[in-house]
């Protein structure tokens, strides 16, 4: 395993001529620093992964090996939820075998990662950033928030969950954090879209231009997309399409795009883009 990462590093250094045009990501054996419950159903995994940490940008992901053998076969894509010096953080939800295996990792264990992968968020110069994370979709949103905070850019975070136990932040609208809960147990009762409506009425009454960034379950993304289209608000969405490789080779993670007015008779990656290399972040307006 370590042989793999060593050979990759050596070659990356030797081939400056070609690597300029070839994708640059790493296979890294990351050491687990901590792996703890963050809230009901959410776990936070901190990994020492210096090469990935120094190359990563908000919205990018890593592809995590969850089995020593060949079953399960594929790596599990996980958004980077934040970085520190030499460290990356992942936030995951246990939904199956791979994530269950991740939850058994102890400090000192090694995690085999590929990354950083994908095209992340673009932060436009104008528009007040409103960051929306539903459930485990909070992961790429927190990394973007870290980036905005470091750049001194004011913003507002809205995190949605079903109930108070699934939250790990405090509801502090004046400090830039709004929580929503389906059952009304904390923050604004309702969905994340209700949280956004509340923000616009009570915290952004002047109606200054916004720039939306969202990640979460399909229903939330669909709602955000409708709103962004209807009101012509710039909006980027991070998708979690199932993928096999994460770097464009398998062509498996197709995402349907809104048809062009005059589509070409034959095209490639126009009607269907790939979540791994064209995304996972897309502009809401380009998605079908």
């Amino acid at each position: 395993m370590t042989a793999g990462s060593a050979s990759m590093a050596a070659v990356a250094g030797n081939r400056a001529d070609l690597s300029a045009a070839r994708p640059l990501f790493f296979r890294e054996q990351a050491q687990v620093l901590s792996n703890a419950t963050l809230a009901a159903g959410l776990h936070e995994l901190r990994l020492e992964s210096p090469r990935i940490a120094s190359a990563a940008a908000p919205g990018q992901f890593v592809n995590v090996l969850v089995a020593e053998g060949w079953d399960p076969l594929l790596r599990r894509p996980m958004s980077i939820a934040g970085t520190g010096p030499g460290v990356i953080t992942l936030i995951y939800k246990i939904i199956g075998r791979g994530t269950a295996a991740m939850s058994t990792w102890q400090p000192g264990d090694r995690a085999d990662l590929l990354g950083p992968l994908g095209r992340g968020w673009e932060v436009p110069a104008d528009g007040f950033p409103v960051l929306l994370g539903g459930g485990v979709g909070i992961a790429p949103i927190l990394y973007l928030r870290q980036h905005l905070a470091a750049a001194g850019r004011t913003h507002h975070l809205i995190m949605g969950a079903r109930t108070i136990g699934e939250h790990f932040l405090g509801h502090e609208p004046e400090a830039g954090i709004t929580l929503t809960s389906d059952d009304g147990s904390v923050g604004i009762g309702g969905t994340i879209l209700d949280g956004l409506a509340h923000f616009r009425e009570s915290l952004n009454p002047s109606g200054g231009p916004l720039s939306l960034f969202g990640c979460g379950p399909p229903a939330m993304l669909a709602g955000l997309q409708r709103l962004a289209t209807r009101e012509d608000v710039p909006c980027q969405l991070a998708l979690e399409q199932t993928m096999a490789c994460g770097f464009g080779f398998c062509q498996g993670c197709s995402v349907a795009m809104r048809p062009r007015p005059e589509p070409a008779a034959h095209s490639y990656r126009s009607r269907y883009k790939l979540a791994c290399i064209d995304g996972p972040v897309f502009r809401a307006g380009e998605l079908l």
Partner: protein
Amino acid sequence: MDVSLRTSLGSKLVLAAPVMTASGTFGYGDDAPAAVDLGALGAVVTKSITRHPREGHPPPRISETPSGLLNAIGLANIGVDEFCRERLPALAHIGSVVIVSIAGSSMDEYAEVLSIIEAHDPDIGGYEINVSCPNVAEGGMEFGVDCAMTESLTRRLRDLTGRFLMVKLSPNVTDIGDIARSAEGGGADALSAINTVVGMDIDPASGRPSLHTVLGGLSGPAIRPIALACVYKVARAVQIPVVGLGGISDADDVIRFLQAGAAAVQIGTANYRDPAIAVQIIAALRERLAGMGLAAPSDLPGVAA
């Protein structure tokens, strides 16, 4: 002992190692991650190229099964014009032999794609013909499931190129040995086997198939025994070299295929775990052969009776 991995596939193609990357699992050759030492590979087989660009199938296109991957990509690719314009010039410099995979929905389409590439007099190792494509004129029957279609397609392409020409066989046939003989009769220089095995999965909760197209192609370690049996049968049916693939994930798997009669192998789905895995497998193969006291892969004994 010094191990030499140099491998000839007939008189037209010599490989630095008997291990290539398989079509559809490693891009076009010039887009491999910077960290992969392409120079160590025997060859890179490109994604299958068609006459026009293709979008491929709607999602979902892939789903995981026990030790396997089901896919229905739908031959999404850039098309031969962009391939020749944007990729072909760079392929001479990637450090590895490139074999261009060709697909089509009619005999004319295969012939046109190959002729367009030939017109560039490219610096490539040759062609692999993906015959697991529906022949639209024959009601959608795949070229590779019919002996006559396989033979006439091979002969048509044989007449268009003097370069190394390899036909990639489908396992989804009654007798793969018969199809192999037809491709050999049509003038193929080598055969590769196997393409994916037809498969399907269903989400029991919703009753929905896991792929948009319902049926897909199974790959990965789950198909290795099927692939090995196919290679064994093909190698006994023909005189030309056989390139084995299907579920290969380490050096021991490579040795299994060589012992079953393959002259070389390809690595497919395993690349998705690590795009440098073929390079690592070649290094491990060299060590394994040295450990066995063998000077070359061809010194491996055949399958024991």
